[in-house]
């Protein structure tokens, strides 16, 4: 493991050891990117090329997967096709080349929209409530503080399926099954542990002398919080919000068990995009690509706060 050349200490790795390290790491990174690259490529294949063996690395790209993802189609007889007026758009033409006609937009729009509504709604609530609670836990003497904070963290240890049954019964009784509001509240509760712990770390880093000075100048506690602490927390709040958003965006178990249509998000929907004769892989790949894209962008934005986020603020840099 420690094959550094003798002339250098580990403190300052030598050029050879650096080069070897970079080669190994880059090879790992590239290999681990193969599955992702392959899925993005599959989104631009036709259903036939998608299941060709040996797998085709070079192929003629087509938008068929994306068209299939966004539309519902029916197969028609050649006679029916011949009687149709000429296609109006490029995607009409693409679908007709397979002897099919577009019957309307697919349900993917709705699912993606649900993901956005529930994701942003629950993120807003979780960060709003989390900011308030984090401030209180950081600044005031709260009875049983450590126990309360541990309790908040421990809510994350429940297997989602374990609480899914009572939540299912509760939502059924309250009429919240398959509703946006119900899912927003649920994801907010799940995200609160992360948001309180992360944000508390960020508040702890703001010197309390700032607010105290403001309060001596005549601000009330709330004004000091609003005008002095919040602006200082903005970077932390943004990072926390992205983490909450990614969680809500990616969540699957609750969405599968508690929603069926109206409020269903994209993750339970993408795996069941059916084409003719089984899963429509290019459409699934297209849906996957569109679904992953925001997460990839957010990850790049978040990269400096990643460590903190994934450990609930336990490890900071």
């Amino acid at each position: 493991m420690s094959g550094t050349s003798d002339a250098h200490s580990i403190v300052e790795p030598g050029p050879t050891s650096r080069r070897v390290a970079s080669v190994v790491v880059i090879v790992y990174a590239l290999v681990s990117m193969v599955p992702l690259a392959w899925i993005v490529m599959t989104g631009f294949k036709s259903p036939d090329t998608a299941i060709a063996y040996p797998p085709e690395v070079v192929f003629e790209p087509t938008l068929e997967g994306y068209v299939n993802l966004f539309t519902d189609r029916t197969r028609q007889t050649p006679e029916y096709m011949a009687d149709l007026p000429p296609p109006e758009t490029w995607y009409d033409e693409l679908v007709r080349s397979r002897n099919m006609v577009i019957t309307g937009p697919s349900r993917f729009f709705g699912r993606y929209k649900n993901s956005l509504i529930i994701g942003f709604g629950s993120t807003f609530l979780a960060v709003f409530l989390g900011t308030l609670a984090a401030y209180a836990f950081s600044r005031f003497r709260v009875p049983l503080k450590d126990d309360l904070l541990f309790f908040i963290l421990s809510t994350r240890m429940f297997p989602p399926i374990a609480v899914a049954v009572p939540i299912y019964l509760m939502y059924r009784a309250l009429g919240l099954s398959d509703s946006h509001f119900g899912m927003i509240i649920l994801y907010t509760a799940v995200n609160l542990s992360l948001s309180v712990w992360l944000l508390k770390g960020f508040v702890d880093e703001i010197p309390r002398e700032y607010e105290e000075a403001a309060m001596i100048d005549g601000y009330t506690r709330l004004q000091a919080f609003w005008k002095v602490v919040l602006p200082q927390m903005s970077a932390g709040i943004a990072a926390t919000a992205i983490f909450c958003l990614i969680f809500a965006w990616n969540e699957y178990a609750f969405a599968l068990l508690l929603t069926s249509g109206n409020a269903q998000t994209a993750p339970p929907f993408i795996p069941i995009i059916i084409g003719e004769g089984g899963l429509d892989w290019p459409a699934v790949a297209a849906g996957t690509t569109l679904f992953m894209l925001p997460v990839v962008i957010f990850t790049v934005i978040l990269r400096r706060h990643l460590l903190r986020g994934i450990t609930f603020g336990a490890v900071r840099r």
Partner: protein
Amino acid sequence: MAESTLTAEGSRRAQVPVGSRGRARGLSDRAVLLLFITPTLVLLLAINIFPLIWNIVLSFTNYRANQPGREIKWIGLRNYERLLGSEDIWGYLQVTAHFVCWSIFFQVLIGFSLAWLLNRQFRGHAFWTTVIVLPMMLSPAVVGTFWTYLFQPQSGIFNYIVNFFIDAGDFSMIGDVALAPWTIVIVDTWMWTPFVMLICLAGLRSIPEYIYEAAEVDGASPWRQFWTITVPMVLPFLMLAVLFRAIENFKMFDMVVELTSGGPGSTTELASINLKREAFESWKTGYSAAFATILFVTVFGAANIYVKFLNQVKKR
């Protein structure tokens, strides 16, 4: 500098006693405190604790959620007796243990090695770190879905690549009884190795350089430095990473459901997957509530013991 805390500490330093600064103007500090934490606690009680207690109550009944009209009978510990006496349950727990142990083993091995290499700070290391991290940010269910495509026995690229290097012939990572338990380990390792790597990297960066310099002066070999400085100093971080991964993988549901849905047979039927079947397909609500309670108590108990142990390691 990295700092690792699991319990809330460090904020004890300068706490303003409630009331002492809550002057005449505006809300008192006590009012602000109540205003700020009540909504969070109420929501957690309503959505987390209340269902959990309800779950425990249900576990003593024969309730079935798909038959709301049926009379609910208290059956005491019968659900628990049936669970602990059932051989199937131990089978599911074994599958879960296999998955948790092996995935963590590979993630620690590869994750630590990568972190150790990345710590050399070669050119572009920050960029490659971000690239490596991507898989763990994706939706586990969607990851499970697209890996089924990569694992297709007839057309999948995984089989193609394996056959390119060794002549393995026809095989199905998802359909084969012997391979499927390893398939879920492979995908989980692909997805979560970056997690262990990031935490180890923080651990490595937290080691002050002067320790190595002192060891160098004392003439300690790089091998000895690695085992007496690097490993012990990274250990608390590594243990934290293992804790997170163990809890997450013990609860694992989404990725494996989409990848193998527990099959073939029940070779990848993790505890959570079986729980979902009993609760939402067989509708044995009371029975599944007992199973859920057992799982939760196991995670919670094990995590608590582990954290105590971790805090001891940190103190050394």
